[in-house]
């Protein structure tokens, strides 16, 4: 059988020393990916649909208290716990190293969500409405997910696909910086860098070699494609 290879292995580096926790990425993600608007009750039940959330940690007690922010989206694990448990192969691994989700295969068992240690998969427990004319804003590039479907961050795969089509029409490979997911594009502090980790010269790959690097819940051995760089300065130099 022919081996599936790709010159790309998409990944993201998030510099927590730059991140201010402002929340611009959260809204940008929601705008780009047709993420449903959740009512208060829905969020109270723990069923918020955001693909990207900002974890906030209080460290210490007053007056020696600090705050740490941690933007968490799908980590696109190379050994993803969500993939082997899907009975219908809705959750799959693509050759670019992305952890894909095929919405029209999903039957809503939620096994993948249960198995995800990062709690980044969100399930459409309710049908989501875009009261007219809010539906005009919905992006034509992405499906609007129905009730009963699991969804999650795709690293803005529609943007990756578009760049691939354009680059292959021009007979070249995608250049560094050509693709930016909505979150990285809007981040005021430029904390997020997206790129091809298979290309050692890409900006993301260079940043990912920083001594400040760590993976989220590294001990689980999921080998995520998202690399965090520790913030906090003096404590961590």
């Amino acid at each position: 059988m022919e081996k599936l290879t790709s010159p790309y292995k998409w990944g993201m580096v998030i510099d927590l020393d730059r991140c201010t926790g402002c929340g611009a990425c959260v809204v940008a993600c929601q705008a780009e990916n047709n993420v449903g608007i959740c009512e208060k009750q829905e969020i109270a039940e723990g069923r918020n649909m955001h693909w990207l959330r900002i974890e906030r940690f209080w460290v210490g007690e007053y007056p020696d208290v600090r705050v740490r922010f941690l933007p968490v989206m799908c980590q696109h694990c190379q050994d993803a716990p969500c993939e082997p448990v899907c009975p219908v192969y809705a959750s799959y691994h693509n050759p670019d190293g992305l952890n894909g989700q095929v919405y029209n295969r999903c039957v809503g068992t939620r096994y993948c969500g249960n198995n995800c240690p990062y709690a980044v998969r969100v399930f459409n427990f309710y049908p989501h409405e875009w009261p007219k004319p809010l539906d005009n804003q919905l992006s034509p590039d992405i499906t609007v997910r129905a009730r009963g479907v699991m969804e999650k961050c795709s690293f803005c795969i529609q943007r990756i696909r578009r760049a691939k089509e354009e680059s292959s029409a021009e007979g070249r490979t995608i250049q560094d910086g050509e693709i930016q997911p909505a979150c990285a594009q809007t981040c005021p502090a430029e904390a997020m860098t997206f790129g091809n980790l298979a290309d050692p010269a890409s900006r993301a790959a260079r940043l990912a070699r920083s001594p400040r690097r760590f993976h989220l819940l590294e001990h689980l051995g999921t080998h995520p494609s998202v690399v965090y760089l520790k913030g906090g300065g003096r404590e961590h130099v």
Partner: protein
Amino acid sequence: MKRRTFLQLGGMTVASAFLAGCQGQNEKLIPYLIPPDEGVTPGKATYYASSCSGCPAGCGILVRVSEGRAKKIEGNPRHPVNRGRLCARGQAALQELYHPDRIQQPLRRSGPRGSGKFQKISWSEALDLLSDTLKELQQEPNTGSLALLTPQLTGSLATLTGVFMRSFGSTHHLAYELLAPDWLRLANRYSFGQPDLPFYDLAETRYLLSFGADFVENHLSPVQYGNAFGRMRQGRDTVRGHFTYIGGRMSLTGASADRWMPAKPGSEGVLALGLARLILAGSLHDKAALSNSGIRPEELLARLRNYDLQRVADATGLAKNSIVEVAREFATTRPSLAMAGESVAFQSNGLEAVRAIQLLNTLVGNLNRPGGVYPASADPSTGALLRKESSFSELLALIASMRAGKIKAALIKGNPVHTVPPVTGFQEALDTVPFIVSFATVLDDTALQAELILPDHAALESWGDVVPLAGSRTMVYGTMQPVVTPLYDTRQFADVLLATASRLGGPLAAALPEESFVEYLKFSQAQRFSSEKEEDLELLWVELLSGGGHFAPDQAPEKHYRWASSAVIADPPTPAFAGEANKFPLHLQVYPSTAFHDGRGAVLPWLQQLPDPMSTVVWGSWIEINPKTASSLGISQGDLVEVTSPRSSLRLPAVVYPGIRPDMVAIPLGQGHHGGGRYAKDRGVNPLTLLSLLNGKEQLAAWNATRVRVTRISKKGDLVSAGHPEGSYRGDLIGI
């Protein structure tokens, strides 16, 4: 048929199908039965450059438009203020355009005021009603009975409204915003003899000392400073800028600090002067900079002799060694930078405190230096680049005129009923105005009071120009253009003014002969580049629109800050607070919400759903209480509490917040709308109702000088937070 022939034929069929499929480009797959509109290719998006009008920072945006619908707002990478970046509010501006509760045509009130009963009328009826009323006012001997209330205005709209009011004969144009930096202009005038707002070179500084300047969420130009903050931290190979935040509440900005100094409210000025004394006593000041500023170090040190370490430590409640450390680090880690913010300025001694902070910059030579502070780009007070801002005292003057019955009609753009603190008496004064016209896009609190609603276009349907507030050292002029055809039968505010001018005739029509605001914009361009030929102007106009504005190349402007020779360092007076300490033991801080600014974002569901970064609360208001204070009052996370100030009381849920002084509580601004569409209506509370009025010097209002008491009511606070109060993971587990 033989098996082999079958396979050959089958193979050929498949191959020819593939060949045919490969030929076409994507566009050819969709037959053009009806030729598309010019420039519209199905499935292909177009990007239009415009400017964000969500706050005065005026960032450049690119709007992705597909099949005539706006899909996504992105930052304009060529814009020098935001460099392709955008904040949450800017991202959400799309929903203003497609808000389901937008007013779709002119409305006239049919029930009593505030009842929300309106009947639909046509634009010609509406404009007749408006111009008839204004004509009556013109016939009166006192034509000053018309008032115009707007947010801060820049560019051609500022000029147009100025001409309109002047030609009408009224001086009552109020462009007041609660969060406008008039206090900073005033302090600059005292200290440097000029009112220009500062541009802080955050990206190049090595030591940042912020006295309550919340530049990540709202101070001056948040996206610009958020970006510069990232570069300050990790943009340089060997230097990581240090950040110390001073303020009784750890704000979102303060959360990124390396050191947090929770000084007592109102003691920041004393702290700044104490730091200045330590720097002078240790001879750590910049001697050349001081002699340039005409300050003699010995004299200044003698002047500051009262600010000894013990007194400063007592006044601020901070540890002595941390004050000494910060003084040494600030003076020796150059370039350093001290910023003053709203929470300092909104104290009764705010002006003196802000000036003391400016002295710190002067003392260590941070003025006009890379990594220091410069005057921001020119904002001339005349011509096409006018900026219209009104001070708090002008608001009080207008309220007095309203009360005296001198104002017969008010044209209101914006939502002052929600954003002006009720203690000023604005809302009652507005009730006495017989004719109110609102230009709201949704039925907000102000529109509910109006006689006539003339719905404005959404920002993405509007023409305009913007001079960004203090976001750059060079001149930046941003343009706004409609990216979609208007959804409803609405008209742009400026177009309504022009139509009214032509209906009224006389000097007004002569002063404003243009038929539409686009023409007016083009005309002001022609004035700006008057040396150009006419055909060049048309070309220039197209260039401006396609690029999103005119951005002057990076060159050092002429302006500099220089400590004014007449500037005297005033001692910050002991801070005054409304409410006795024994009855109202807690200091109340109201602060602009990250998502809603002063409340304008609350109508948009994306922003309501955005968890507040610090408390993770969604869809509501909350009060932040220190854990110790909360436990002494028997309050736990999510309890319903009653907050009582000398003026009024409110009920809202409590959030136990480790980053706030035990003698303080804080409530975000923005919620508590009575109108504002389905997403904002009757949600949360407006903490402005709690505030008492205390004036500092020059009638600067002290909005952070009210004391309150908090009592627990029940455990049903209806608080919904998206995150676990402690964070989802154990911090040590992930090594954060």
